[in-house]
């Protein structure tokens, strides 16, 4: 059977000389789930943008139904029957579900917008494809999983035969992933074709029929999902054997950080963290599990000083952190790898060297008599670039020109170059490629082994399971479960607590809240 959609030797070079796609081939048959996997920066997103008409290829051809096509903008791709669900949703928060679905292709009566018809059509679509969502409420009030369904409905409303899902599971809890997969199977059963971009390999193997692997802008190969294992796929993706395993902490040390009856409130006074009690010992990593927005970030902010503690206390080695400023907290050994490296972790326009000493401006080594010691700052940068193998032109290069992985390495280098006593880490490897991920994980465990107490928050459950010695689960600002990490602990178990479907009793939690 001839493929439905075919991309032949696609080439794309961005202004600035970054070769994103170089002779990429993709062949998708009708009615299959076709996964495209690869590390970040492998060129998956660029290929999808070309398929959807956001970018134009410099070389190569696209064939749809065997006929050459070229899209100059998304509208043409939509008209040809291609729909795309981006990782960051394109939904207007205050608009209702049905308004979002029909936006840009509204049913009309005369010059007016036919709301009744829009609602009816959205109802019919969600019925037909088993994507249950109420058309009336505002999208901003819905949970992430439902918003994603709205995005899929949007594509289906425009009669998409081919649906591109860009890392759809990144934002979902395990149960929501299952629901998404049910919907994907329903789509395929009704003759639609799904292109699934991902880098979480177990999911890829579960949902897809065939897999195209990309690496460094090229296609490495196409395989049937029944023919490969997770390990062989990972090897194809990275081009060498990867060991995404880390060693557990040998022993937990002294109590380092003690959090007692802690409350954190939003600016509007809404409780974000409620009555939290937690101990963190030197030399262990405690994983903070939870769907985003359930209090993990607020806890880290309250301890780092980004947000005030509303009630309760947090001690680090006996010193109460509450009254201290962020700088004073850093001085007694708090280090922070924040969630958003671009907005919170780095000054984009400043140089690598400047960023590497930005938290150390009280340090006599770099600042004397109120003047910067440029020589010392530069040699510090050269040493750290070497030690953390950051790929950068030199210490004077602006941080904003680096790739995500290298930016994150700069943050990690700055925070870990002096051994911290308490390390706060949030989303350390979001948008970072496998090689850098390995390196960052190693840096974190090294800091742990040197005696840091680590609080780790991540949207990636496999990362939490790989790194943490203990895990606590947040739901609506409270701890609902605590576990000692073991091979028996699965994402599904964590998921049911994350979604608030289950709660441990005090006694069950006590075991892991040492």
């Amino acid at each position, binding site marked *: 059977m001839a493929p439905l959609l075919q991309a032949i030797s696609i080439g794309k070079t961005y202004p600035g000389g970054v070769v994103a796609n170089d002779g990429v081939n993709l062949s998708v048959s009708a009615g299959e789930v076709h996964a495209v996997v690869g590390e970040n920066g492998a060129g998956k997103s660029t290929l999808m943008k070309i398929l959807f008409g956001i970018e134009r290829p410099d070389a190569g051809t696209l064939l749809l139904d065997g006929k050459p096509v070229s899209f100059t903008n998304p509208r043409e791709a*939509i008209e040809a029957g291609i729909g795309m669900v*981006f990782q*960051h*949703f394109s939904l*207007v928060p205050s608009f209702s579900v049905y308004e*979002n679905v029909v*936006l*840009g292709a509204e049913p009309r009566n005369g010059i007016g917008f036919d709301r009744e018809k829009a609602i009816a059509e959205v109802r019919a679509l969600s019925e037909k494809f088993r994507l249950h969502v109420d058309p009336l409420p505002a999208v901003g009030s819905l949970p992430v999983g439902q918003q994603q369904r709205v995005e899929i409905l949007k594509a289906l409303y425009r009669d998409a035969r081919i649906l591109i899902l860009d890392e759809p599971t990144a934002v979902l809890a395990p149960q929501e992933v299952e629901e998404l997969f049910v919907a994907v199977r329903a789509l395929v059963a009704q003759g639609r074709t799904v292109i699934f971009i991902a880098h979480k390999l177990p999911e890829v193997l579960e949902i897809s029929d065939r897999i195209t692997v990309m690496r460094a802008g090229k296609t490495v190969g196409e395989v049937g999902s029944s023919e490969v294992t997770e390990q062989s796929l990972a090897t194809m993706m990275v081009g060498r054997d990867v060991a995404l395993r880390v060693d557990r902490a040998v022993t937990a040390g002294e109590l380092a950080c003690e959090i007692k009856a802690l409350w954190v409130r939003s600016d509007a006074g*809404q*409780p974000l963290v409620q009555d939290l009690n937690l101990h963190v010992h030197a030399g262990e990593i405690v994983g903070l599990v939870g769907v985003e927005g359930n209090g993990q970030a607020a806890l880290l902010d309250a301890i780092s000083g980004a947000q005030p503690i509303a009630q309760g206390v947090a001690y680090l080695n006996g010193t109460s952190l509450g009254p201290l400023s962020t700088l004073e907290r850093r001085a007694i050994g708090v280090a922070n790898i924040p969630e958003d490296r671009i907005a919170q972790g780095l000054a984009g326009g400043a140089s690598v060297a400047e960023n590497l000493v930005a938290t150390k401006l009280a340090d006599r080594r770099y600042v004397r008599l109120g003047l910067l010691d440029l020589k010392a700052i530069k040699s510090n940068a050269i040493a750290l670039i070497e030690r953390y193998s950051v790929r950068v032109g030199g210490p004077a290069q602006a941080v904003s020109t680096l790739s995500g992985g290298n930016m994150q390495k700069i943050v990690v280098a700055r925070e870990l170059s002096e051994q911290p006593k308490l390390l706060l880490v949030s989303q350390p490897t979001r948008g970072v490629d496998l090689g850098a991920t390995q390196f960052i994980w190693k840096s974190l465990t090294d800091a742990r082994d040197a005696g840091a107490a680590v609080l780790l928050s991540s949207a990636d459950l496999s990362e939490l399971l790989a790194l943490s010695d203990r895990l606590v689960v947040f739901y609506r600002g409270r701890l609902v479960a605590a576990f000692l990490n073991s091979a028996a602990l699965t994402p599904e178990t964590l998921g049911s607590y994350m979604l608030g479907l289950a709660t441990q009793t005090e006694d069950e939690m006590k075991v892991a809240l040492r």
Partner: protein
Amino acid sequence: MIELLATVISSAFFVTVIRTTTPLLLATLGGLIADLSGALNVALEGQMLVGCLTAVIVSVYAPWYVAVLAGLGSGAVLGLVMAFFALRLKADIILVGFAINIMAAGGTVFALAMATGGDKGTSINLVSKAIPPVDLSFLGVIPGIGPVLVSLLSGHSVLSWVAAFLVFAIWYFLYRMPWGLWLRGVGEYPAAPAAAGIPVNAVRAWSLVVSGGLAGLGGAQLAMFNYVGFARDMTAGRGFIALGAVLLGARHPVGALLAALLFGAFEGLAVVMPGLFADAPAELIRMIPFIVTILALVLFSYRAQRARQMRTLSKS
């Protein structure tokens, strides 16, 4: 005090308020459209001022309605200029807006001097026309309420009726037509309409053009009805008051009408009060509309903040 009350509840005062409100309302509607599309139009003041002068000069040579259209057109052109710099050349839209305001303040005086042969203050030497009032005195035949209707409704500018109709038309456009949905979507979260294939920048450019046109129309009303003729800086901050009225009106056309009426009423007050309080300094009285603007905005943002708090609390 009693005299003041008697003045305020008279039908003559109502007519004054409608007159002072009309230019403000037109500019506020312009500000509303631009603001909802996500392109804040801080150049309303300059567009209004240029609208004033264009209308006055054109009216010397052409019928009044051509002059009104010219005022509208001049504002629209300035809106297009704004769109070109802010959207195509990616300049900061606030700075572009201020550049237009500054150019309008200087440029109108320059053009006035050119048109009048050297007068840099007013267009008193030009024989400019006025917008004719709409005569509804035939309503007087209605028994009982006839005379009241006539005193309230007759004699307003054509543009006052147009402005009232525009409140409804813009509401219908924003909430009942697909393009209104586009415009609001573009303003709130441009990535969404962009992904749906809606040309975001074109929507914004049209909004700025319409916004400028409405401000220019407000200028025509100001210089061809409220006053007949041009005077330097005759808009006197109305464009900025209109920006405040957009927020005060909760970014809704009907709210815009109410906010413009509020400010118009205080401006009307500033018009009638000097006659009643002879010993109060006229400068202080003229400050009233501006002080009310500031107070209203402070009160509004305080209330908005409270409302946000209440909302997040009830959600938890």
